[in-house]
């Protein structure tokens, strides 16, 4: 009896063990294939009503909108502003119900992946090209070309369209932008009497590596309780900062012009990485960068504990306004370049996309909503201001009465082709921060780490390209 009991207890325990692990690892179900989706996309595009050309249908439609905290929280309540948009939209389109679900930058991407894998995607998403174009390439989105009249298409720079399209189809409706830059706490420089070391007397604020190093040294010498600058390599988040920082110090770009191969593995970029590793030891750059995330170093910046942060923009400045723990003045700066030449900045680009959920009515209603968010006479500019970003439209300028926004407008001239639309981009990113960690931890020289990164990343790009076929 005891033996039987033991055997059954043992069997139940084993089943539970296997269940526990497998329940954690199961990814959900998948129904449609890419081929099905691709076919459906075409159908949806042709059957979806164009809000620019057709009157809204009286048919009641319910759509779901998942939103990252794209808009600054109203009265400190995340999602309150989005509800205000929906209320205003419903005054014009009472037949369309918009169900809002707020997602976070931390958990949202994973939630979206699970939703895609389990065929439970929302109708609408406000996101950036990195993810949207990947979904577009995988045939998960509805094309938006029929809702973009020529006057709008011609009013937006080609660089933005390039990031919003796959082939000749538009999958993201671009709305707001801002170049990613670095930022400096000028209050520290005022205190140590070193304002002249910053390039603020130049209208375009461009500066050289040597000038940057002199500024860091001044902070180290005169403001001993402040960390001169930051770096981070814990994870993918905010990696546009590390990419652009090294690429500019190395006078190169992250990928080549057509995003088909890595270009950052130059001698100069390798030397820049070596300098960062050494500067960390010399206390010019924060120590422990291998275990710090972008959010960690920006938190320190907002606490007034570091002089420079390398992952900032007008949008982040606006979003961080309520998170500042110390009184100080922050100013946007372009990344320094090895020789002081104009930098190449990656743009933040935000826009909306529609998941193809095989329902022409929902796709049409989603397009109507996007049109309202981007182009409504009242809410179009109001929404832009609430993002803290600039308009992608050339004709819409001067939204803010703020010198930093004026500078952001000016810095748009430095925006270069971003790598985020490359094939296999999600996998390319996974190779980047371990490469940085290797250099920071003395495991490899900058050039060797970048060469190894290039080899792995080029393979990922090739794999991504092959997966499209």
């Amino acid at each position: 009896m005891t033996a039987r009991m033991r055997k059954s207890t043992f069997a139940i325990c084993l089943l539970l063990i296997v269940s526990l692990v497998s329940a954690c690892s199961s990814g959900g179900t998948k129904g449609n294939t890419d081929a099905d989706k691709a076919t459906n996309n075409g159908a949806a595009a042709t059957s979806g009503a164009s809000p620019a050309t057709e009157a809204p249908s009286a048919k009641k439609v319910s759509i779901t909108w998942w939103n990252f905290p794209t808009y600054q929280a109203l009265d400190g309540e995340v999602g309150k502003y989005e509800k205000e948009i929906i209320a205003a939209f419903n005054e014009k389109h009472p037949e369309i119900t918009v169900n809002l679900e707020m997602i976070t930058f931390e958990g949202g991407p994973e939630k979206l992946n699970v939703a895609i894998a389990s065929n439970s995607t929302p109708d609408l998403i406000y996101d950036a090209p990195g993810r949207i174009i990947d979904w577009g390439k995988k045939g998960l989105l509805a094309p938006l070309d029929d809702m973009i009249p020529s006057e709008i298409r011609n009013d937006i720079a080609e660089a933005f369209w390039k990031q919003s399209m796959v082939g000749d189809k538009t999958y993201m409706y671009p709305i707001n932008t801002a170049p990613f830059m670095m930022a400096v706490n000028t209050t520290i420089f005022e205190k140590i009497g070193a304002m002249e070391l910053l390039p603020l007397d130049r209208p375009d604020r461009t500066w050289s590596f040597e000038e940057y190093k002199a500024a860091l040294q001044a902070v180290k010498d005169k403001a001993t309780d402040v960390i001169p600058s930051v770096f981070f390599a814990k994870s993918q988040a905010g990696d546009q900062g590390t990419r652009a920082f090294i690429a500019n110090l190395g006078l190169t770009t992250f990928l080549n012009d057509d995003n088909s191969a890595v270009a950052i593995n130059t001698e100069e970029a390798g030397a820049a990485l070596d300098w960062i590793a050494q500067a960390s030891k010399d206390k010019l750059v924060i120590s422990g960068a291998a275990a710090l995330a972008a959010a960690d170093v920006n938190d320190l910046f907002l606490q007034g504990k570091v002089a420079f942060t390398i992952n900032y923009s007008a949008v982040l400045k606006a979003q961080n306004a309520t998170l500042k723990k110390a009184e100080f003045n922050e100013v946007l700066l372009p990344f320094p370049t090895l020789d002081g030449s104009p930098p190449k900045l990656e743009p933040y680009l935000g826009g909306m996309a529609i998941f193809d959920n095989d329902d022409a009515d929902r796709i049409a209603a989603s397009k109507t909503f996007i049109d309202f968010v981007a182009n409504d006479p009242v809410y179009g500019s109001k929404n832009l201001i609430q993002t803290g970003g600039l308009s992608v439209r050339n004709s819409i300028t001067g939204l803010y009465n703020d010198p930093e926004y004026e500078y952001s407008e000016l810095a748009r001239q430095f925006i270069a082709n971003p790598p985020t639309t490359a094939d296999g981009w999600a996998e390319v990113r996974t190779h980047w921060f371990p490469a940085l960690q290797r250099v920071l931890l003395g495991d490899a020289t900058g050039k060797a780490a970048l060469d190894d990164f290039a080899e792995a990343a080029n393979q990922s790009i090739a794999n991504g390209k092959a997966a499209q076929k």
Partner: protein
Amino acid sequence: MLVTLLKSRRLVWREWLVSYLFLLPALSFFLLFVAYPMLKGIYISFFDFTLNKFAFVGLDNYAALFQDKYFKKSMMNTLLIVLIAVPLVIAFSLFVANTIYRKSELVRSFFRGVFYLPAVSSVVSITVVWASIYDPNFGILNYLTSFFGAEPIAWLGQPDTALYAIIAVLITTSVGQPIILYVASLGNIPASYIEAAQIDRASSGQIFRKIIWPMLMPTNLYIIVITTINTFQTFAIVQLLTAGGPLYSTSTVMYGVYEKAFMLGSFGIASAMGMILAVVIGVISIIQFKYLGSDVEY
């Protein structure tokens, strides 16, 4: 006679039916949320399942994992964490329980509460606190070691220290339940056994080895098996403190599952990783049952 037999069978049938009806709610949940995902996980592990693809690949996912140096590294890290953390959790819990179980109820309750607190606290909150303790620039740990002339250390930023820093956090969150169970089990050992041994001039070590340890075997078995399973599935602490870095030095299999499935959308590979981990845990559990369960009297 026949009527009595039929009545008896009807009673047995009714009892059987009622028993299963009572089991039905729990069984339904088990089948829906545990057994079904488990079987689905096994099924998916044989497919190339990504965001836009679902194609049968047989054992390719498993073959790819055995060639994957990062998976091997994650498995080794996981085994190392288990080998270090589980014995330390057991030893520390037993030491604390043995120290406090004969104290007054008030003292026992205080220590049980203190050590159980991390078990009922949010792992995210605990990890945030530890992140600030380990902070290389402003952390209290470096501040304390500076009194001994030590240079600041990036505890989570160095491959040599990061895994041990993770294990330390893991131990603090794992000892609560074992301490409670050991205190209860120690309290159930009849005092007369120990008194008799003391009269026979048995040393403390002999009493522990010959009386206390054997009497604790059922509790030991449970704690060791459960702690081993939980430790094999270390994820949240790693994700929050190091994201598997630096240089994959803290990457665990469960973190790899998360990374592959939820960050890269490779659900087939992730399921295969989960299955391999399940097999490893299953084998180790069999060994634990075989060697630790032989003397257990239920």
